[in-house]
């Protein structure tokens, strides 16, 4: 890219180039099972998760080590969230929600390393998770409650005249859920990384480079927050949707 900028004699930004999926070995097309940079960074995330949660808790110490403390902290945080939002009967879905949370959290934070790749910025990745949650929760709702699950859309405390209108709105908002659920995560991560890249492009100009580097630092700080918050938001929304499936009555 630097050569591009030089050869064209001006500022050329390619903030989205960082999201290009590249095969790690060779230059061939990206097939279904090609080992790519996506694979690499998801794999690193999986290894980091195993490192913290399996190796960290290896000692099963009553007085925890630092790693075990981190694992226990995340465990306690998500367990309490699931229990608070979905109630006691939602606790059996805790491993699924924990899986989503640690995956998003670790991928988000690993993506903040320089030269890394951010799989959670890819709409395909977040859409699979978002729609996966949506489909599972909807099936679960019908299996557990039968037709009573449709009561979710029928507001019993609203005036009778308004109920059909509210039902239509509720149905639309229900089907928008997976879209907003997945685009929220991908959009946040993608936007943050792209903005950092734009600032980095400006840093090539001597005159504005101090401002640009200050900007990178500030946005990076923001991204550190966003990485955690988006993992949290994705998880708590999953819990809320799960609660609707378990207790459809408002």
């Amino acid at each position: 890219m630097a050569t591009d900028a030089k050869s064209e004699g001006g500022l050329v930004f390619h903030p989205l180039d960082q999201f290009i999926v590249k095969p790690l070995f060779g230059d061939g097309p990206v097939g279904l099972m090609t080992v790519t940079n996506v694979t690499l960074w998801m794999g690193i995330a999986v290894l980091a998760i195993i490192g913290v949660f399996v190796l960290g808790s290896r000692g099963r110490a009553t007085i925890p080590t630092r790693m075990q403390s981190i694992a226990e902290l995340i465990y306690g945080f998500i367990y309490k969230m699931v229990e608070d939002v979905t109630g006691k009967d939602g606790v059996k879905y805790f491993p699924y929600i924990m899986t989503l949370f640690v995956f998003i959290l670790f991928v988000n934070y690993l993506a903040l390393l320089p030269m890394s790749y951010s799989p959670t910025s890819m709409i395909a990745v977040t859409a699979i998770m978002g729609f996966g949650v949506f489909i599972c929760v909807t099936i679960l709702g019908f299996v557990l409650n039968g037709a009573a699950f449709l009561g979710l859309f029928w507001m019993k405390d609203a005036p009778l005249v308004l109920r059909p209108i509210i039902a239509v709105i509720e149905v639309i908002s229900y089907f928008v859920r997976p879209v907003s659920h997945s685009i929220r995560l991908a959009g946040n991560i993608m936007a943050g990384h792209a903005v950092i890249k734009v600032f980095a492009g400006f840093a090539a100009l001597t005159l504005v480079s101090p401002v640009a580097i200050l900007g990178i630092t500030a946005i990076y700080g923001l991204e550190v927050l966003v990485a955690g918050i988006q993992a949290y938001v994705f998880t708590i929304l999953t819990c809320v949707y799960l609660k609707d499936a378990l207790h459809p009555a408002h």
Partner: protein
Amino acid sequence: MATETTEATAGACVDAGGSAIGMPQLCADWMPNQIFWLVISLIVIYFVMSRIALPRIGAVLAERSGTITNDLAKAEDLKLQAVEAEAAYEKALADARTEASKIVAEARAAIQSDLDAELAKADEKISAQTAESEKAIAEIRASAADSIKTVAKDVAKSLVSAMGGTADAKTVTAAVTAKMKG
């Protein structure tokens, strides 16, 4: 046809310079790959979590809370024991105090009786000695009076003879005796 050649070398969504065409996020050619690896990652994480990590951490947390509850109960027990021990100690202290005061009173009484006996004995001795002394003094006094009488008779006889008279022993004695009585 030019696009086909770049596709062959760099892929569908990348131009000849290696930059992305449009958003890489929307490149349909790359999606199956991401989805495939995402599903693999999630399955691996799920099995690691649900089979190993979560039961282990849950057990550790349960064990810890159990240990804490036990320790608290134990501490409560120990506290009760300490309270009991303190009560026993207080009682022992009070007992010891009354015992001590009893002993002190006894000792005091014993000392008092000893003292009284000794005092009585001493008084007796003193009165005996006083009587003896009085007797001795009386003897001394009596002997002194006799001596004085003799001395007075002798002096009177000497005086009479010195003044040229003849001392009649009987008269002198009578006179001296009379004087001494008077």
